[in-house]
């Protein structure tokens, strides 16, 4: 069944009623079907009104929803002949970032993405999407491979941030992220990144310094988590909601700031309600974004990417 978020309580109650009524059907009169229909419309209305005005903090909750489609789901539905590639050739394989080659709309691409995992086992396996240096170094390797064979790069961004640990620091977490940004910027092939859930700081931009950055309607992208920001700037962990507000981490704000290129609409009630539909829309978004670079010279593609980041920040929010 559905995992409801705290602010979805009224929706949960209504849908609960619908379920109850449905159990009654079959044995009772036909009237129940009518009743179910009415309630269903109510649910839709409520979903629409709730999701039309999600607060930044609520969006953070949706972005982290356990049932939200993850990178593995996007790869499964959008990429054929997917061939995972592993390892940084220096230290280890890090499953917090997965990647490989495959075909998108029939054409070879390199796909890279953070993977958070969907249950306890896979979450541990993928370290909750928090990569270590070897993860970023693997990403660098795959991006260079793409460049070498003139394949576009598609990345899915979904991470709370880079892993904060002794081993990660010892192996140069900072350098690994810095170098990944540098490799992104050096590519002479088009690179499209989609923030599908949580774009957590340096760990996110490491694989998202792209020609086009798309964001799902209810995803977030931020320099620091609302929780982290609240505890540092407000010295109060309870100020998450205020911090989320102040950080301007929603897709809508980031589009206004020119940090992202477009927003991908989510199904009613969020991507987690209808993953297949959400994934299909993301597929269209990627296709459109890549189409803009078809036939362009590699040098031009690289220059355009650079220009885009240089232009950033010329306009603030009014």
């Amino acid at each position: 069944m559905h995992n409801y978020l705290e602010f979805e309580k009224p929706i949960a109650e209504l849908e609960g009623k619908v379920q109850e009524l449905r159990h009654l059907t079959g044995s009772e009169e036909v009237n129940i079907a009518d009743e179910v229909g009415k309630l269903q419309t109510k649910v839709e209305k409520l979903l629409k009104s709730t999701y039309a005005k999600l607060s930044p903090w609520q969006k953070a909750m949706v972005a982290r929803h356990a049932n939200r489609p993850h990178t593995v789901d996007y790869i499964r539905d959008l990429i054929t002949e997917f061939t995972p590639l592993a390892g940084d050739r220096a230290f280890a394989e890090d499953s917090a970032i997965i990647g490989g080659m495959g075909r998108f709309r029939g054409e070879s691409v390199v796909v890279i993405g953070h993977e958070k995992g969907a249950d306890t086992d896979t979450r541990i396996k993928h370290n909750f999407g928090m990569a270590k240096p070897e993860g970023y170094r693997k990403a660098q390797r795959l991006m260079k491979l793409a460049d070498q064979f003139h394949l576009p790069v598609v990345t899915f961004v979904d991470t709370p941030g880079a892993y904060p640990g002794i081993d990660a620091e010892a192996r140069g977490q900072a350098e690994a992220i810095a170098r990944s940004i540098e490799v992104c910027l050096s590519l002479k092939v088009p690179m499209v990144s989609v923030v599908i859930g949580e774009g957590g700081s340096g760990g996110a931009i490491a694989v998202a310094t792209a020609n086009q950055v798309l964001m799902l309607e209810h995803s977030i992208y931020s320099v620091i988590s609302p929780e982290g920001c609240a505890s540092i700037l407000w010295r109060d962990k309870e100020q998450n909601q205020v911090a989320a507000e102040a950080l301007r981490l929603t897709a809508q704000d980031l589009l206004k700031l020119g940090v992202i290129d477009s927003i991908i609409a989510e199904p009613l009630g969020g991507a987690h309600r209808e993953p297949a539909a959400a994934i299909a829309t993301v597929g269209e978004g990627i296709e459109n974004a890549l189409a803009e670079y078809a036939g362009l010279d590699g040098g031009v593609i690289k220059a355009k990417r650079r220009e885009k980041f240089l232009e950033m920040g010329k306009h603030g929010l009014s």
Partner: protein
Amino acid sequence: MNWLKSWVRPKLRELVGQKEIPDHLWHKCPSCEEMIFHRDLEKNLRVCQHCGHHMRLNAKKRCELLFDDGEYTSIELKSPIVDPLKFKDRRKYSDRLKESQNKTGDDDAILVAHGTMGANKVVVAAFNFEFMGGSMGMAVGEGLLAAARLAVMQRAPLIVVPSSGGARMQEGILSLMQMARSTIAVEEVREAGLPYIVLLTDPTTGGVSASFAMLGDIAVSEPGAMIGFAGARVIEQTIRQQLPEGFQRAEYLYEHGMIDMVVHRTDLRDTLIRIVGLLCNPGASGELVSLEPAPKKKTVSDVDEVGEDPTPATFVDPDAIVVDAIDPNDDKKD
């Protein structure tokens, strides 16, 4: 480009007199807690004479230390949009900015200057930790880009001296984007074939370490500097373990292969001059290498005088590089 130039002559300024700190003032070393005379501390380049602890230098002091005769020209930086997010935590960001500007007399946390160092032209971009912890927002990003372009224009090496806690949270996602923009600055210098040298100083962490600061062709650090991505507290909370002794210090990074050398402040200028010379003045013939083994030059004085600092100042032997690079058959003599 209209670089507004302002000559800075520290000696002259001393005569005119800035906010003077009386010589009889005492400082307490934050590391060994010994008392140090203000005059002695300044004479010793703000290094504790008791324990060798390197105290932070602000951007102006840093430039005075690096440039020949302490003379340099700083460039006026384009001011970016102020407070782009209209950010307010317990206080308004715009108020915090003003306060820092009043306190430091600077516009933001970076100083971009050019001049000569060992008679070589160099461009230096130095961070000012006193300005909001040296944090990187739009202004710092613009400063790094301006520094890179100045270096390219002057065909001079770029030396960046970070001293920063990381991204400036009050500029939200735009501060994160400076990681990409500062990396573009590095790329512009690289593409021009010019050396990009980073002098890591205390602290170099977060988004600053995870972008331009870790991309130097050569990475030099001051002893004891805190360098890392994640903050120690965050790591402790995540892994619930005590952090090892010396964790994220310059010496730790050196041991882990992340930086080229740890150099005492007294030797810093000479070391940087030598590095710039080796990279920019390869020799009369213009050839990068010579097959003739060059006479061994004495490298910078050793750091024994630092006393208990266990870190060896580590220098690359230029001759060794020549041999390795050119002739694999030539046996290394030492």
